[in-house]
């Protein structure tokens, strides 16, 4: 414990795993993928209370604003989406007590300073392919109204603009345009998640787009839209 600076619980874990051999325990400890830093639950309570809404046991819009302020990030900054993902937040602009506290625990922070220091690494997570996909798909459930199955078009467009600023997709503006002109209805979950696949695997000139590729109907329509308006040349 003195050498690694870890907690008693973790030390015991390591020793047990290595059959009470000290050297083995060190190996075990340092090979752990994620070394969770200890969080003080009292600090977490205090932090939660700072942002909690006076009337409801939740952090609401004002609390979130304050939090962003403290973290020195804009409320529309995409890093807040990453934060929400870690917290497994059910819906945007709200955090429940459970979500906030266990979220911060899993991040290993219990103070605003530590939280602020964590921000760059959270941002970096968007660059990881797998994490980005998880965050992207998480965003659908998070951004939509609780009672609805689908995501309202305006919100969807806003989210797409945000997300594809991080992971550049040249056709995103045409996509949003197309939706407003032709579709004008909410977005289904399947369409949402398939769009990412489309953006990742199909090249902007659509040379490897396969009409038999079981893409959602809306995406097929989008391709037609691109051809019709001469944005992409029909070559195949």
């Amino acid at each position, binding site marked *: 414990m003195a050498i690694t600076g870890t907690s008693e619980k973790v030390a015991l874990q390591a020793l047990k795993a290595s059959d009470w051999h000290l050297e083995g325990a060190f190996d075990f400890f340092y090979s752990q993928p994620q070394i969770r830093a200890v969080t003080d639950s009292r600090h977490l309570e205090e932090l939660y209370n700072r942002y909690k809404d006076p009337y409801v046991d939740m952090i609401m819009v004002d609390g979130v604003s304050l939090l962003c302020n403290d973290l020195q990030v804009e409320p529309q900054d995409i890093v807040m989406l990453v934060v929400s993902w870690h917290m497994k937040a059910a819906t945007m602009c709200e955090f429940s007590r459970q979500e906030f506290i266990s979220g911060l625990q899993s991040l290993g922070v219990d103070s605003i300073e530590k939280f602020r220091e964590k921000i760059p690494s959270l941002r970096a997570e968007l660059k990881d392919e797998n994490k980005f996909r998880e965050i992207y798909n998480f965003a659908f459930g998070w951004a939509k109204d609780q009672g609805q199955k689908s995501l309202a078009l305006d919100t969807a467009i806003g989210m797409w603009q945000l997300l594809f600023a991080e992971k550049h997709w040249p056709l995103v503006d045409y996509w949003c345009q197309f939706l407003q002109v032709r579709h004008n209805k909410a977005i*289904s979950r*399947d369409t949402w998640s398939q769009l990412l696949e489309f953006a990742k695997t199909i090249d902007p000139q659509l040379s490897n787009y396969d009409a038999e590729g*079981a893409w959602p*109907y809306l995406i*097929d329509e989008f391709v037609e839209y691109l051809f019709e308006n001469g944005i992409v040349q029909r070559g195949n």
Partner: protein
Amino acid sequence: MSAQKKRNFKIEAFKHRVEVDPKYAEKTWKILEHAIHEIYNHNASGLSFEELYRNAYNMVLHKYGEKLYSGLVTTMTWHLKEIAKSIEAAQGGLFLEELNRKWGDHNKALQMIRDILMYMDRTFVPSNRKTPVHELGLNLWRDNIIHSHKIQTRLLDTLLDLIHRERTGEVINRGLMRNITKMLMDLGSSVYQEDFERPFLEVSASFYSGESQQFIECCDCGDYLKKAERRLNEEMERVSHYLDAKSEAKITSVVEKEMIANHMQRLVHMENSGLVNMLVDDKYEDLSRMYNLFRRVPEGLSTIRDVMTSHLRETGKQLVSDPERLRDPVDFVQRLLDMKDKHDKIISIAFNNDKTFQNALNSSFEYFINLNNRSPEFISLYVDDKLRKGLKGVTEEDVEVVLDKVMMLFRYLQEKDVFEKYYKQHLAKRLLSGKTVSDDAERSMIVKLKTECGYQFTSKLEGMFTDMRTSQDTMQGFYASQYSETGDGPTLAVQVLTTGSWPTQPSAPCNLPAEILGVCEKFRAYYLGTHTGRRLTWQTNMGTADIKATFGKGQKHELNVSTYQMCVLMLFNSADRLSYKEIEQATEIPAADLKRCLQSLACVKGKNVLRKEPMSKDIAEDDAFYFNDKFTSKFIKVKIGTVVAQKESEPEKHETRQRVEEDRKPQIEAAIVRIMKSRRVLDHNSIVTEVTTQLQSRFLPNPVVIKKRIESLIEREFLERDKADRKLYRYLA
């Protein structure tokens, strides 16, 4: 018998070998040689067979077989060379005769020689592997006569020339020809083939090539085919008369190739006389001839079939797209039936009922009938017309014939569910207006549809018939009961329709006149008394009424009108003049229906029981209506009702189609779920294929619609996409 010659030796038994004096052998041979000469010189009668045979026998026995054999060869050869000279010397037509005669002679000689030399033939020849005498004789003939360079070419040329002359119309000596060709065959089939048949086929090929070229420039298709057939028959006859039977297949295939195969396309497509013209003009004989000739050559029948198919498709396509034709649905369908009949007849009379042609006909019909998406509606209207009046007085068998033909067209439809919708509507109108010609015919049609499409297709239709029957019973019960004390009020006839079975109509409001309402309520009370838990809604847009009206000069007429019309007319019992607005208010009939109803009452000549001001054809909001005192008609009973099934107007058509599309969605979804439930995991394209197969007996689902249904099922969590392969779907239990 000849004198015995003196012998120098005795023939002894096998006890000891006797060496024969070589001079003896020579002498013996000389005897035989002389005999051969005599035989060839037609002097055989002076010879003793027994003696000669003995001589030959002795030679062989004393091991002089070789001498005998080679002597034979030399002698015969010498004679044949002489014979060749005499044949070569023959002039003109006598050449063949001479050849024939000498051949006959040679054969006779050969036989005698063989008989004499039989012992040698049986012993020496096989053990020394020599050619037997008879065969030797033929080979020598072949080598010295037939293959002699002066004769060989002349023989062939003569034969070919004769054949050519016969082809151009001359009569030739067929018996002689037969003998010559038989001779060649006797010499060996390779002789026949090399020295005659092959050149014969080549020459024939170029003859027919030339002739066919000539014919095709100047004849029309039908005549050309007649000529080709004639030539073909000629050649077959030629073979049977004087060629070897094996030549038949070869020469016929030459004629087929030159006269038919090489000109197939040109014949079929010949302007004004080709296949299409023959089809159009029902030229059964020509078509039959074409069929029989073309079936002999490769690709012949498929050529005919392809041209027929594209002609059918073209004609059919024009028929279904012609706006003139589309005005009268009954006529439209009648023309389709006529077209089918015509071509059925052609196939059965001229094309030997060939199944592949039947199939081509069917696929063509299927193609163009579905080009027009009103075909299902029109076919239903055709049946409606027949069942209403067209089949009046027709025998039962003929009714079956007509309905069976209609069923054939029905089978070609891809959108059978559209047909079902329309058939239901039309049947409803027929049943409710009592306008069907024969109940049996109606039933028969239902049975045919059931056989074709299964129980579900017709269960609702059958429900409609059941309702009609049940209603009759109900009416009897009603009038027997106390509910029907109406005095001299209106007589009511009610048909109670089960909602699921009949075409759905939105129930529009309509204020019934008080007298009617009264008796309706009585019925309702009676019915609900015996059937608790049910709900009755009056379908005012489907009913009819008979009204007695008295006009200005006291003339009475009985008017047969729709319920809407009755409501309007009854208003005039209490008013002489009514504005459109007043009528609308009083009856609450929806505007579109009301306008149509008023039009039929006021604007149709001979049926204008109402008078309209102004006298325009259209109904305007501020028109005024008067009871037409001056109405006259020849008939006491006047029919003004508008309940006959008609082809739909554009907006109605649009609405029906929308309903059909809506109905298809759950069917597609049910099919997807069924398939996924049993397969668990399946890729997109396979789902589309399976769904199409499952539903094809009702309609052809659009792959885009299938895709949308899949997405809807994903959203409702019946299916999900596979995590690894996005083209795969999984069933979620």
